[in-house]
């Protein structure tokens, strides 16, 4: 059911349980990318000032004339490093994320959910060139939208996913029924239906009251009451399903 409703990626790991990864869509990834660009620009600026200073100090203090080429060369090396080495090293590191991704709270993992290897990090980074084409990452975005896991070409080739790093913090405030008594549903429900009801109870506080009522209205046949009362009844059913009360 989660497969239909959410951006959750269910993966069965070797231990026989399913874990749920929270996939990150184009928007947070775009923000992370923009932050990375700023970081790189900052490094480039600091680097160029540094190169200039080194050259200046060498010529004044020691009288070495290294030639202007040294500074230019260092700048080329830094720019090259930022284009390729930056994301390879950061994503293969313990962070599994570039600074931008880390700030946004994203992380790169294998499709199996395990941390990515150096190979994968290299493949992802190399193919970014193609994903960027023709401009602003259009190829990557379109590819991402064409599959169910938001994988750009680089992700597909490297077999990686970008997910939210801390899935342990759902936006729901609290579980439980706020003192609403468990209520036995008047009909037998499939597992899928039960799951939907439990999720409703978990989330209804996130929505405006009118929206919660509107959704509850769909279950009129089951709850047999209207408005706010219908909401409480669904929550009661969730309590009953969970075995609470």
């Amino acid at each position, binding site marked *: 059911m989660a497969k239909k409703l959410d951006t959750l990626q269910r993966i069965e*790991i070797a*231990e*026989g*349980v*399913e*874990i749920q*990864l929270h996939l990150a869509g184009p928007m947070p990834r775009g923000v992370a990318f923009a932050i990375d660009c700023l970081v790189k620009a900052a490094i480039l600026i600091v680097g160029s000032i540094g190169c200039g200073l080194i050259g200046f100090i060498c010529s004044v203090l020691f009288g070495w*004339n*290294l*030639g*202007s*080429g*040294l*500074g*230019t*060369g*260092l700048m*080329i*090396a830094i720019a*090259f490093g930022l*284009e*390729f080495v930056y994301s390879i090293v950061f994503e293969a590191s*313990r962070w599994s994320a570039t600074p931008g991704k880390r700030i946004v709270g994203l992380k790169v*993992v294998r499709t*199996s*959910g*395990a*941390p990515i*290897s*150096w*190979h994968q990090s*290299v*493949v992802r980074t*190399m*193919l*970014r*060139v*193609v994903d960027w084409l023709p401009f602003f990452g259009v190829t990557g975005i379109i590819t991402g939208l064409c*599959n169910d896991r938001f994988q750009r*070409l680089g992700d*597909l*080739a*490297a*077999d990686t996913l970008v997910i939210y790093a*801390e*899935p*342990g*913090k*759902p936006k*729901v405030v*609290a*579980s*439980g029924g706020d003192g609403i008594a468990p209520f036995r549903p008047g009909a037998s429900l499939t597992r899928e239906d039960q*799951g939907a009801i*439990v*999720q409703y*109870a*978990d989330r209804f506080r996130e929505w405006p009251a009118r929206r919660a009522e509107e959704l509850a209205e769909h279950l009129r046949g089951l709850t047999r009451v209207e408005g706010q009362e219908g909401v409480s009844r669904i929550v009661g059913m969730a309590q009953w399903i*969970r*075995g609470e009360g």
Partner: protein
Amino acid sequence: MKPSAFAERGEKTWKEVEEALNELDGTRGIVPSASRLPTLFRQVCGDLSLAQYRMYGLVLCERINGLVIRGYGHLNRDRSDLMRALRQGVLEDFPLLVRHEWRLFWLMMACFWLPFWGIYLSSFHDVRWMTSLLGAEALDQLQQGYGEEGGFHEMRDNFGSNFEMFAFYIANNVGIDFRTFAGGILGGVGTLFFVVYNGLHFGAATGYVQQEADIDKFMEWISGHSSPEILGMIFSGMAGMRLGLALIRPGQRSRRHSLAKAANRAVKLLYAAAFLTTMAAVIEGFWSPLRLPVFLKYSFGCSLTLGLISWLLFAGKEERRAA
């Protein structure tokens, strides 16, 4: 069992796992609590499937889900020894891989050398073609480097400019390698384009120098670094074609699966390409501009080429798999 009772019962284990994970997050090494992690992890896995099956709700499930993901990450951490992998890769795996992929190797050689010789030989017929292919600026540079009055020695008067050119060669040539590889994902078309284009470009430069400048200076200059540079390009082309072929001819696998598998293989070719091209940049940056007897430069270039060929032909044992 009520969710609250379940949470109460599991809390102790979860806390313990959480602490062990927090400790592990802070270090590359191993902490004492890590030895308990596998056992605890299996318990938490059991808890997760129970909580999911009994629909204990988002908060509880997400918490255990988070623990399992983090634990899974740590238990599956890549702890391979980089130096060992490097040694084995250079001395065994890579030459074996190239010998295994001999068809792609010769395909890429053909894609480079046929345009090269074609355009080079055409320079005897009409050198103006080179002009239109290379552009005025490149011709100017060729004249400066290898012309009658100019000379590449004069262009490099100090360490700084050597270093600048070294950095430039790395960024430019390794960047081209990487793009050649990446172009493979477009069904191999991008790769073919880059390799053929490079063949044309080098061929045109050689042809132009042959007709209009001093070919001996040119040969002296490229004798050192040309073999690793061209091999590097061939390898990145092979890597790119691996990607492209995986999409065009996935065989029994799905395209997605086939691509991921091919990329894993291709990236090893790419490492070798990057290594060789970097080596070429070091040679081109620091060795080639030296004022040495031509004889010495040619012997260096020849021995390097022979070394590379024998590395590809003889390193690594074919029967390793049996062991």
